């Protein structure tokens, strides 16, 4: 979110307090002290996580505090992980496997590469999953694991905190 603050003391608190008050998780704040907008205000860039329903409430509160909300950018899914499946992926209904993750609503399979060497041979899939939070990513992974087990597929996860 890009905000604009008046050039008088105490403005940053007025901008950040409402975010933490409605249980937003602030990830980064960049305060451009030396810059001025054409309106003479100071631009501030804030990155935070927030329950989507609360966004309007937040904007209202910020404006009440005299903080100008210049731009709201939304990236819903910012956790990413790659996984592989090996086995009869296509024969065991790949659509259904993908749906198992997508239907959670908080995680999606955003990329899928398949290798199918021959009709009777096992195939492999490399997929990238996006999720809104680490917890959601982990629960999506659990769901995928369960689905893979049911279908007799081998699932290969990345090692923890891979650099």
């Amino acid at each position, binding site marked *: 979110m890009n905000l604009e603050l008046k050039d008088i003391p105490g403005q940053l608190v007025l901008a950040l307090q409402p975010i933490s008050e409605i249980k937003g998780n602030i990830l980064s704040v960049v305060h451009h002290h030396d810059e001025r907008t054409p309106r003479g205000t100071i631009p501030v860039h804030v990155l935070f996580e927030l329950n989507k329903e609360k966004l309007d409430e937040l904007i209202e509160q910020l404006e009440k505090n005299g903080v100008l909300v210049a731009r709201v950018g939304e990236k819903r899914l910012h956790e990413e992980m*790659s*996984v*592989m499946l*090996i*086995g009869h992926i296509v024969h065991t209904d790949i659509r259904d496997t993908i749906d198992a993750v997508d239907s959670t609503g908080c995680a999606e399979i955003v990329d899928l*590469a398949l*290798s199918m*060497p021959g009709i009777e*041979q*096992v*195939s*492999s*899939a*490399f997929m990238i999953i996006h999720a809104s939070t680490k917890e959601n990513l982990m629960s999506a992974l659990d769901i995928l694991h369960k689905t893979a087990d049911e279908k007799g597929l*081998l699932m*290969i*996860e*990345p*090692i*923890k905190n*891979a*650099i």
Partner: protein
Amino acid sequence: MKDIKISIIGFGDVGQGVVQVLSQKQQTLEKLGVNIKVVAIVDSRSSLVNADGIDLEKAVQVKRDTGIVGKAGSTTAEIIKNTDHDLVVEVTPTDINTGEPGLTNILTAIENGKHVVTSNKGPFARNYAKLMKAAKDHGVILRYEATVGGAMPIINLIQENLAGNTIERIDGILNGTCNYILTRMGEETLDYQHALLEAQELGIAEADPTYDVMGIDAACKLVILANTAYNNNAIFDDVSITGITKITPQALELADKNGYAVRLICEVSEQVLSVAPKLVPKKHPLAVGGTLNIATIHTDLSKMVTISGIGAGSIETASVILSDIIHISTGYLTHTL
């Protein structure tokens, strides 16, 4: 200089390797003030005892020529009980299910007041806590560096060098055979069976590769690491195990295209005990090739410490047995002199 009298129980590759490094390192040992005298050697069918010290070269020659090292008639327990010595080197073959004959050998040695150095994983798979308690109760030292990671001194690293740290997690590759097979499958697009045959021809995989490729060997090592790091009485049956037999060269190719290698990874923490193939970024320290073993220990104070080394081979394994023997001998001298 005081004599440290030792027995060697098991006289296969590792037992003979121990004899070889003891002969080769005599001068080094003298400098350390340790004179190690082998007074008994036992193999599966015979035994050789000499209170004045066995002629090691001759013992190896006899074993090679006749298949046995000495005379039949005495049991291992009798030799351990009735021979005057300080330390037992237990290097019999591993049986993960029963732990025998190593389990009984080690317990007999401990109960008779002998220190023990072993490379045998089997006894620890379900009895780590029991063995450690027995050693403590009898006031002897049990060291087992050679059970995990071959020449890579990871047990010492955890117990001594990283003492005081809280170990958050250990990730590692602890089975050289699987790592070799996965490396070759990836490099040459070989299928699993082909890479396994190649490994068997080179002596990297055993005729019955089950222990290795099903992840059983790695799981047993992981149990030993877990007990060493957390003293948590973990047993083999607690480990979630997935082997490498279902991996295809096409899968490895696909992983490679996306910047990953696939490796059989052991993960140990207080919550997780798992052996499974995992995606490892190609630039990650754990993405080693060939038969190497490697482990990264994640700690609170030291952060990440990574150690790597040759995971198998009789001399490499004997090298860490020697180190354990020296550790006990020098401590023993300080205490008794």
